[in-house]
C-alpha cells in the first residue's frame, strides 16, 4: 500500500478512465440519435406543398429570425464576428398549394420554423461596406444587434404538420427544407460517431496492450489513447452541435470589410439596428 504502485495497476486505471469517457460520449450520441428518431416519427403527418401567397412582408407565408450581436475582431481589413442571441419563428398566414388544392394556414406568432440553409446564409451576408460600417462602431464596445431574417415566399416548397383538420387546424411545424433527410443524416452521424470512436478506442487499446507492456509499441498506444481522450470530447460536442434543428442551429459567422476604412478612420457611432427584414 505504501510502496510504489505497479505501473500495470495504474495503466489499468488509466485505461478504465479512457473507456468510461469513450462509452459516455458514445452513449450521449446514441441518446441524441434516438431523440432524432423520435422527432422523425413525430413528423409522421408531414405534408408537402408550395407557398401560393402569404400575408407577411413581400407575400411571405412565414419567417425565421436569428437575433445576432456583431462584435469587432482584431483584424485588418476590419472584420465582424456574429454571435447568436436567440431564434424566432413566425407564421403570417397564407395559402399553400397541396396536390393542386389551396390550403389555408393560419397566422401564428411563435412556431418552430426551419429556414432554408442556403437562403439563410445568403441573408446573413452584409451586402455592402456601408452596411458593415453601420454595425462596426458599436461592435467595438457593447456590440451591434442585427436580425438575420429568412422568409418563406410564394413559390417555395414547404413541409408542415398540423394538428386537427379544416378551419380549426393548428400549425405545429413548418419547414422550408425536407426534415426527414436532415434528421436521418444527423441520426446517422451520431451513430457513426459512436461506433467509430469506440472502434478507434478499441484499436488503440490493442496497441497499448501490445507486449511487452510499456515497450515502444505499447507506449505509442498510450500516446494514442491520451490523444484520443483529449480529442473525442470536442468531437462529440461538434457532432451534437451540428445536429441542432435548423430552427435553432448556430448561424454565427464572421465577415470582413472589402478594404480597410478610408484613411484609417473608424466610422461614426450608430445606434440604428440593422436588419435585412
Amino acid at each position, binding site marked *: 500500500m505504501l510502496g510504489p504502485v505497479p505501473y500495470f495497476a495504474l495503466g489499468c486505471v488509466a485505461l478504465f478512465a479512457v473507456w468510461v469517457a469513450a462509452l459516455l460520449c458514445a452513449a*450521449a450520441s446514441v441518446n441524441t440519435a434516438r431523440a432524432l428518431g423520435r422527432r422523425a416519427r413525430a413528423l409522421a403527418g408531414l405534408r408537402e406543398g408550395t407557398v401560393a401567397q402569404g400575408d407577411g412582408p413581400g407575400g411571405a407565408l412565414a419567417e425565421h429570425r436569428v437575433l445576432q450581436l456583431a462584435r469587432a475582431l482584431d483584424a485588418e481589413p476590419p472584420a465582424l*464576428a456574429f454571435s447568436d442571441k436567440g431564434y424566432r419563428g413566425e407564421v403570417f398566414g397564407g395559402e399553400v398549394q397541396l396536390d393542386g388544392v389551396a390550403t389555408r394556414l393560419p397566422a401564428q406568432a411563435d412556431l418552430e420554423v426551419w429556414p432554408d440553409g442556403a437562403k439563410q446564409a445568403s441573408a446573413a451576408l452584409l451586402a455592402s461596406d456601408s452596411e458593415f460600417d453601420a454595425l462596426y462602431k458599436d461592435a467595438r464596445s457593447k456590440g451591434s444587434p442585427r436580425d438575420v431574417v429568412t422568409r418563406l415566399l410564394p413559390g417555395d416548397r414547404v413541409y408542415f404538420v398540423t394538428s386537427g383538420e379544416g378551419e380549426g387546424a393548428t400549425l405545429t411545424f413548418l419547414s422550408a427544407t425536407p426534415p426527414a433527410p436532415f434528421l436521418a443524416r444527423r441520426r446517422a452521424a451520431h451513430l457513426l460517431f459512436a461506433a467509430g470512436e469506440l472502434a478507434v478506442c478499441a484499436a488503440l487499446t490493442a496497441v497499448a496492450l501490445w507486449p511487452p507492456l510499456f515497450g515502444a509499441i505499447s*507506449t505509442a498506444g498510450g500516446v494514442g489513447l491520451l490523444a484520443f481522450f483529449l480529442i473525442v470530447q*470536442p468531437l462529440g460536442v461538434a457532432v451534437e452541435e451540428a445536429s441542432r434543428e435548423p430552427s435553432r442551429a448556430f448561424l454565427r459567422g464572421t465577415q470582413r470589410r472589402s478594404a480597410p476604412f478610408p484613411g484609417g478612420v473608424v466610422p461614426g457611432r450608430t445606434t440604428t439596428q440593422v436588419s435585412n427584414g
Partner: protein
Amino acid sequence: MTSLPNTPKVLHEASSSVARAPAAPRLGPLKLLKNAYDLRQVGLITLYMGVLFTMYFVPAARTLPLLAFACWLSFLNTVVLHNSLHSGPFRSTTLNNAWRMVLSFGALYPASANIPSHNLVHHHFEDDGQEDWAAPGHVRFRWNLLNLLHFPNVAGPRTFAGVTRWSKLHGRADFRGQYLREQVFAFGLTAVLLAHDFWTALFFVVIPQLWGARGILRINLIQHDGCDVTSEWNHSRNFVGRAFNWVMCNNGLHTIHHNRAGLHWSLLWEWHDKEVVARIDPSLNEPSMIGYLARTYLFRFSRPAPRAVAHAEANAGGTDLAPREVRRAEIEAAGTAV
C-alpha cells in the same frame, strides 16, 4: 454606477463585527501579496508542485497515498486558480501572470480561460443570450450518476470553443498574449515531461492534472443543477461545512461569490451571513458535499426534479446589488487585469 465592494480598498477590509471573517494578519514580510490570507493559496500550490515533481523524479515516492494526495491538491489548484482569476494574489502584475502560468500547468489548461468562461459567462449564466458554456442542461442522461461523470466531456470543449471565439474580439490582444504564454508553458512543460518519461508523466503528472481540471468542471453541475439560475439569490447550492470551506478557501459559499464576485474569498462568510441566509431556500445550504453527492448521484437513479426555490427571496429586503448586466459590464471592462 456601482456600490459593489469590489474596489481594492474594500476588498481587503475585514469587518470586526463578524466572527468568521477575522481581520487579515499584518502583511509584514509578505509584501508581495495583496492579502496575507493568500499565503494559504501559495502554500497549497507550492505543496502541489512539490508532490508532482517528487513523484516524477523520485521512484520511491510513486505511492498510492501520494498520488491520491496529488489529485486532491490538483483540485485545490483549480480552486486557487479560480480565486486568482477573480483577484490576483500578488501586487505585481508580472507575478500574477507568472502565477497563472504555474496554475495552468497544475490544471493542464490555460488559467486565463476563466476570465471569459467563468467570470463573464458562468457568473451570469448566459453567453449573450445563449446558454452558459457549463450549464447543467448540457447533460441529459436519465441515470444521474452518468451526468456527473459525463459533464466535463461536454462542458470542457464548449468552454474552450467559447474562449477561442471571445479571445478574437477587438481589444483582447493582452488576453491572447497571456493565454498563449499559459498554453505554451502548461502544455510545453507537460509535453517535455511526457517525452522524457511517458508513463511516469502520464500516471503521476497528467492524471492529477486532469483530475483537478475535470473536478472543477463538475462543480458547475454540483453547485447549480436543480437551482433557479434566473433568480438573484437562489441560483446556486452552497456547501457550508466549516472545515470544508477552510480547505476550499470558502469556495463552498457559491451564492455570494456569484453575486459579489469581487469580494476576496476570505470575506465570503461575512457576506454570506449578511446577504444570502435571509434570501435563500434552506435546501440550497448543504452541510456536506459528500452527503449531497452520495444522496444525489449514488443512492438514487434519476435526476432530482427542480424545485421552486426562488420564492425564498421574495419577502427579503432589497440590497445594493447591481443588476447582472452591470456586473458583467464591470468584469468585461476589467479585462485581464484582475
